[in-house]
């Protein structure tokens, strides 16, 4: 057992963390979030140059990371800074490409910052179920043509290419018959509608009408599971980063805000609730460690651990966010304080890649299978 990051990984995380602290303070973050495109190409280019993106991809595919704990180290920092840039899509898309093989050039472009990818799988009615998709693809001579829609794709407008899942055979709910395709943003029939998110990020709806796509795999389900597992590890650690920030800022507030002549942190009822918050954060961190550790493991253990983590993060995240607002009193309700933005992002993480109930049910299923 060893609970320390390797020296290289620690260095990357520290470099990244320092960069964000200096170059991505909360005022800058709000400016970027409020801008028309809703992310910062300039920061992105710098991060690519720093090599941060390479931490998301394994050495064999051109990066120098890609393990659960590499992803953890990077997304923890993202969470602390509430960064809105297209990291999640980059992770999931490059991981897909690495798994199917043969796209090292494109991966290289992405890691170097020359190209951006989005990952579009969820649909308006799939409700987190990986097999519940209606988009479909049909052969047209040598080509594949895609039809259908994808919902709430993170930073969709930023993408040059989009990885899209679509049925090539079988029915909703079946594991077999799902394909993954690489679709050009500029391809015919692609309609992108972008919009802001309540948490300050940006996403988009994707519509495809007879859009040509390059088939990446016709047996996508195992790839989807692995890639979504990596996404969950990422979101879990983003949440851990946020929760640590919320804890620190809430403790600060409890120590400095006075009511009835004393710092409100002196009130025992608040102390005991804050102790519970701190405990839940440690349990959430353990869940995130378990998921990162299991990302490389066999399927049943991996899926069980990521579902346990996403459930835990969902439950603890809501508790931590709600308690932080409550303990901040009215001030926690204001745009002005960062805590409200941390809280919004934390709760919204529960709406990505499966919520508490979804993953609890999934954990039960994988438990019975094991």
């Amino acid at each position, binding site marked *: 057992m060893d609970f320390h990051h390797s020296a290289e990984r620690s260095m990357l995380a520290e470099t990244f963390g320092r960069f964000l602290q200096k170059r991505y303070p909360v005022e800058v973050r709000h400016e970027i979030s409020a801008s028309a495109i809703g992310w910062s190409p300039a920061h992105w280019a710098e991060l690519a140059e720093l090599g941060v993106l390479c931490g998301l991809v394994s050495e064999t595919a051109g990066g120098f990371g890609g393990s659960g704990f590499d992803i953890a180290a990077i997304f923890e920092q993202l969470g602390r800074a509430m960064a809105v840039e297209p990291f999640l899509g980059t992770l999931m898309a490059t991981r897909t490409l690495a798994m199917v093989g043969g796209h090292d050039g494109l991966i290289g472009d992405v890691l170097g910052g020359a190209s951006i990818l989005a990952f579009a799988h*969820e649909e308006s009615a799939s*409700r987190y*179920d990986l097999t519940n998709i209606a988009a479909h693809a049909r052969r047209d001579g040598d080509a594949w043509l895609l039809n259908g829609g994808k919902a709430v794709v993170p930073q969709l407008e930023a993408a040059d290419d989009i990885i899209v899942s679509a049925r090539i055979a079988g029915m*909703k709910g079946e594991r077999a018959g799902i394909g993954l395709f690489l679709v050009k943003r500029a391809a015919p029939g692609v309609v992108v509608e972008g919009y802001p998110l309540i948490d300050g990020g940006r996403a988009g709806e994707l519509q495809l009408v007879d859009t040509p796509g390059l088939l990446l795999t016709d047996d996508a389900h195992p790839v989807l599971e692995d890639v979504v597992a990596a996404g969950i590890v990422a979101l879990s650690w983003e949440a851990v980063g946020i929760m640590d920030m919320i804890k620190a800022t809430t403790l600060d507030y409890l120590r400095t805000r006075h009511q009835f002549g004393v710092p409100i942190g002196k009130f025992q009822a608040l102390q005991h609730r804050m102790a519970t918050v701190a405990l839940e954060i440690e349990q959430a961190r353990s869940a995130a460690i378990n998921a990162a550790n299991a990302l490389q493991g066999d399927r049943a253990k991996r899926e069980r651990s990521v579902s346990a983590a996403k459930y835990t993060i969902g439950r603890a995240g809501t508790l931590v966010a709600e308690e932080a607002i*409550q303990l901040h009193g009215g001030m926690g*309700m204001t745009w002005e304080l960062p805590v409200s933005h941390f809280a919004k992002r934390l709760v919204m993480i*529960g709406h990505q890649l499966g*919520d508490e109930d979804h993953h609890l049910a999934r954990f039960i299923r994988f438990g019975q299978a094991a």
Partner: protein
Amino acid sequence: MNLDFTPDEERFRAEVRSFLKARLPARIADKVRTGKRLHKKDHEEWHAILHERGWLASHWPPEYGGPGWTTAQAHIFDEEVSLAFAPRVIPFGVSMLGPVLIKFGTSAQKQHWLPRILDGTDWWCQGYSEPGAGSDLASLKTSAVRQGDHYLVNGQKTWTTLAQYADMIFCLVRTSAEGKKQAGISFLLIDMKSPGVEVRPIITLEGEHEVNEIFFTDVRVPVENLVGEENMGWTYAKYLLTYERTSEARVGAATASLAFLKQIAQTEEKGGRPLAEDPLFAARIARVEIDLENMKTTNLRVLAGSGSSAAPLELSAMLKIRGTEIRQELASLARIALGPYAQPFVSEALDEEFQGSRIGPDYAGGLAAHYFNERKLSIFAGSNEVQREIITKVSLEL
């Protein structure tokens, strides 16, 4: 014991329903139902309709323009307007200042202000909280110094809801620094157009402008705007808080939210079936539904016990806590029900003029924002921690 309504009461319910059907503007009800922004004029329109029917000030005695309802009637009315998606009557004039003036005001004050509340001449707001006095309300610092025929007011109020629309504000101000901090407080009515009054918006976490800071700099307030006696304002404020808390049960509003949630859960799908049939989500709904049904009866016990909407402090504190918890849980479940579509938030889409396309189901647009906004329920109007203190002191005698 008997919890059932009498035939007369059921007839009254029917009367309310047909009134709502006939007079509640569909445009306004639709905005309430779908969580769109209500403008000042929407509130004023509905206020005027209720006033015309004589049903605006449901808790006022008839001699001042109240309808003279029993508590059961008031309860039925509250339930029906909520279920019809009528806007909530802005409470500051009708539900808060009105009862205080009726009980503690001079006859001149009553004659002047009460009709203006009813006919909508004055939009009132409430000046209680200060930056340094939230839960510890009595430590407020805004000062009013008597100078001949007026007070000179200096200080700052905060969390003032819809002050940007207000003509008048009722304030707790410090008129004496002697004795206990509760002892030197007075209850003052201040014209928002007075020189030296400045309103600054506070933007809340979902980006809305609903609350404000108000700064008073050498504001002159005529002495006839003092309500009751000088330095007795704490007594009036406590009277008013009891009123406020009972109403914070908001049984009608919760009932309407529950119905709306069930509708969403029937529409949203999970694994090819309505989300409402998912055992875990169905259990979540059922738990809050049972809690609400229990609270309805707790609320009725309070109403029946007191014969008026002023309630024993303990139970009203419980109603404030549980009522806000229930509405927060309902908002939370609506957010959860949306799945990924809880994330998009196009603020302009909450305006009725919005012409752009909507993202996700038509009910989705404002639900996450509503969830975050509803976090205020357990903070404002006497935080739920303050309510627990009240229960501890008043009833548990600890």
